[in-house]
């Protein structure tokens, strides 16, 4: 079987051709065979190629850390447009940063002074540092990655005016094929970056900063958490959800 046929047996024809092309563009010839085999075993392409484009940035990807999603990228691009228009220096606090993709993207904006991103995973924080190095030419703000467990009150002192988060939002009972989770995700991506529910949103409700004009922007899946819940429970001046 040719490489293309191998991939076609697992994916739609156009996706198979596209992915084979990317493998051949980005990896040395000696790795093509292994890459195709891994991909046929549903290893995420982003782990095989070691990266994922995210807006203007290239985010390094490693097993153990969640791969940046396409719709997070879209959300982040929209968010950048919103933040760009704000007056004065913006200081950002981010929960559950994972690969660091959101925090680093926001840190490319000229009016962002500082970004502090937190994650529970030490593996993720190490990758965040690598991604900061990788994208240092584009990052303008001061960026820090800290270890923090959102559910155990390990929150930093901050003067941030903007809180961002894309927390885990797949409820435990849905973390399976029947719940719409892809096999590739179930087999290869870190569960602790995916399984979660309203607890993350309610924790975010407890403001770590005494400043009242804190703005709260959060991403959630409408299927599992209700917009209404967010809008009534959270008393921040702006709730930007998608």
């Amino acid at each position, binding site marked *: 079987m040719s490489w293309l046929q191998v991939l076609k047996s697992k994916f739609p*024809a156009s996706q198979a051709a596209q*992915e084979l092309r990317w493998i051949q563009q980005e990896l040395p010839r000696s790795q093509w065979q292994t890459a195709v085999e891994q991909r046929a075993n549903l290893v995420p392409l*982003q782990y095989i190629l070691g990266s994922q*484009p995210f807006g203007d940035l290239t985010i390094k990807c490693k097993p153990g850390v969640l791969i940046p*999603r*396409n719709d997070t990228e*879209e959300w982040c691009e929209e968010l950048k447009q919103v933040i760009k228009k704000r007056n004065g220096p913006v200081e950002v606090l981010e929960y559950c940063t994972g690969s660091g993709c959101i925090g680093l993207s926001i840190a490319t904006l000229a009016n962002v002074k500082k970004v502090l991103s937190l994650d529970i995973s030490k593996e993720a924080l190490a990758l965040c540092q690598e991604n900061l190095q990788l994208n240092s030419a584009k990052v303008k703000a001061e960026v820090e990655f800290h270890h923090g467990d959102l559910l155990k009150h390990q929150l930093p002192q901050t003067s941030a005016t903007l809180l961002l988060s894309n927390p885990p939002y797949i409820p435990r009972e849905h973390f399976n094929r029947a719940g*719409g989770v*892809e096999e590739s995700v179930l087999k290869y991506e870190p569960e602790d970056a*995916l399984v979660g529910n309203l607890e993350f949103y309610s924790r975010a409700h407890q403001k770590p900063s005494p400043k009242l004009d804190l703005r709260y922007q959060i991403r959630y899946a409408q299927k599992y958490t209700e917009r209404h819940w967010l809008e009534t429970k959270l008393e921040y001046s702006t709730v930007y959800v998608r």
Partner: protein
Amino acid sequence: MKRLYNDLREVINSHRRLKFKSIHTYGSTRNIQEQTIIHPLLLKRADVLKTELKQIGDKMSSSAGFTISDSKKFARITQVVELYDRFVKQSADFSGLKEMLSEPDLDESLKEEAENELKLTHKRLMETSNMLKAKLLPPVPYADRPCLIELRPGAGGHEANIFTNDLLEMYVRFCQINHWPFEIVSKNEHPSGKGIVDATLMINEQGSFDRMRHEAGVHRVQRVPETENKGRVHTSAAAVIVLPKIEADKSDPEYRKFKSDELRIDVMRARGSGGQHVNTTESAVRITHLPTGISVHIQDERSQLRNKEKAMQILRARLADLEMRNRMAREREQRNEQVSSVDRSDKIRTYNFPQSRVTDHRCNFTLYDLEGCLSGERLGELMDNVARKETNDRIAGILSTIETDSSLNCI
């Protein structure tokens, strides 16, 4: 010294008088054309304008029914005729000087002065002829721009896909030979791995649009396809579309901002829940311009953002092209111009493998070096021939409007 100079002027003037006579007749403009590259038909047009100017002048002096549009026309033609007169005079000077310099027993100091004078005259003549040309033949819209070339297979099945790829490679080599920066913006390969479903090539060279625009149309190939086992010659085709590149920023005068309800941007969503549930690699973007229905689909890059930028780039170029076509059609209608322009669906060229030739049907030129054409090395020769034919047609078109319809709006 002063005396010498006067002698020189005298010699020049006598030559000028001699030359001036012959310049006024159409048949003798050949040597002017050689020196200044003005097409004889264009000079003829200028001549026609001169007659026209005289008629308007007569009308003016007799003051019989002289209108505002007459006076506008008068002003417009006067400009051209003045340039034309200057051109004729400078041409005569130039020829006279050249003739004088060719005389074997010319005095040394006289010769030096004549040479200096010749250089000056040549410079002035070039300037005048460029201005005159621009006045006589309206410039091609977007001529100075970089371009995008879109390639799509036509009739002929899989063989057409393979031929489309051959054309893409030909243009890529042509860029390399010319040292033009280029980028394959999008390329969809045929599922078999041979040939392409479509491709877009961007040539980031100023003025490449003017050079490449003659490539637009249907290209036909006659050969025994690789896919044919009975050895029969097949005919298949590929369509080439050439678009002007519009920059995606405000510094470009053609740049336009789209209203939010003008575009529909579809990103390829993962099946199912999307979001954290999937780690999709799909990054395809489709942008539809709702008022015109133009739709661009790009999936080459892993980055959705890059795909979106590319799709917008192509959309802008297609819209500029559409607007240009509409404008030209309107203008043609206004002038009742009879000249047919080349349609996109017209077959423009045949690549015949058995006879190893390429024939361009617009100018009836055949290059007996198929290999040389497909390698990009001799493609330029074909283009030159088409360009020459087009210039002639345009001039002929302008002349016919002058002769049939005396309104000179086309200046």
